[in-house]
């Protein structure tokens, strides 16, 4: 039987630090069955709107529903594919341009599987998890992304 992940939050307050990411990656050294990790990092981009530039994004979520949907997606992927491990982290709150707001990682015996599964994982997150972003421009004004 495949194990399902124990309850934990998929959200991080603010940006996802590289220390946090490194710690998660390093933990897998104890599992020599793994032959490949594929990692996706979503980074806040300094989009332009006319003269204005995005300086940060404010992420908000329907937290209870989002946690459930993340867990559902994680369990689906674990059931559907031959993978060893899977991790997801998403920001809530303010993230500056250049900082990381989404971390997704798929680990398996062989690399061939991990690329496609990672894409599938990120696509499902974007499509199904109730999260919203408000782009804040350097002059303090904002716009909602839909």
């Amino acid at each position: 039987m495949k194990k399902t992940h124990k309850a934990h939050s998929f959200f991080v307050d603010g940006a996802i630090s590289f220390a946090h990411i490194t710690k998660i990656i390093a933990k897998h050294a104890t599992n020599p069955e793994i032959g490949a990790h594929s990692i996706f990092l979503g980074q806040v981009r300094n989009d332009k709107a006319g003269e204005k530039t995005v300086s940060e994004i404010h992420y908000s979520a329907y937290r209870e529903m989002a946690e459930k949907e993340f867990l559902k997606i994680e369990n689906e992927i674990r059931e559907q594919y031959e993978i060893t491990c899977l991790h997801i982290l998403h920001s809530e709150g303010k993230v500056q341009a250049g900082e990381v707001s989404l971390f997704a990682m798929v680990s398996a015996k062989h690399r061939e599987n991990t690329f496609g599964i990672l894409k599938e994982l990120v696509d499902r997150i974007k499509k199904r998890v109730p999260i919203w972003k408000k782009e804040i421009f350097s002059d303090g004004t904002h716009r909602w992304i839909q």
Partner: protein
Amino acid sequence: MSVNIKFFGNLAEVTGLDQITMDHASPVFDSAILKEKLKNIYPALGACKFAIAVNQTVTSGNQDIHDGDEVALLPPYAGG
């Protein structure tokens, strides 16, 4: 009847609220009635795109709403 309605993303900004409670004075028996009532109270919602979730499940078509249900208005998602 008491139904809690949450607003997310730009909808919280449009209504100026995170949530409201609709009670027996203005009962909502299904998601279509709810939508009509909310658009009357907050006309700006008419120009907004959103889905309705009942008890954290997105509805398709018109869905019954019961006393104590948690209802949420969800604009298009933009995670990542």
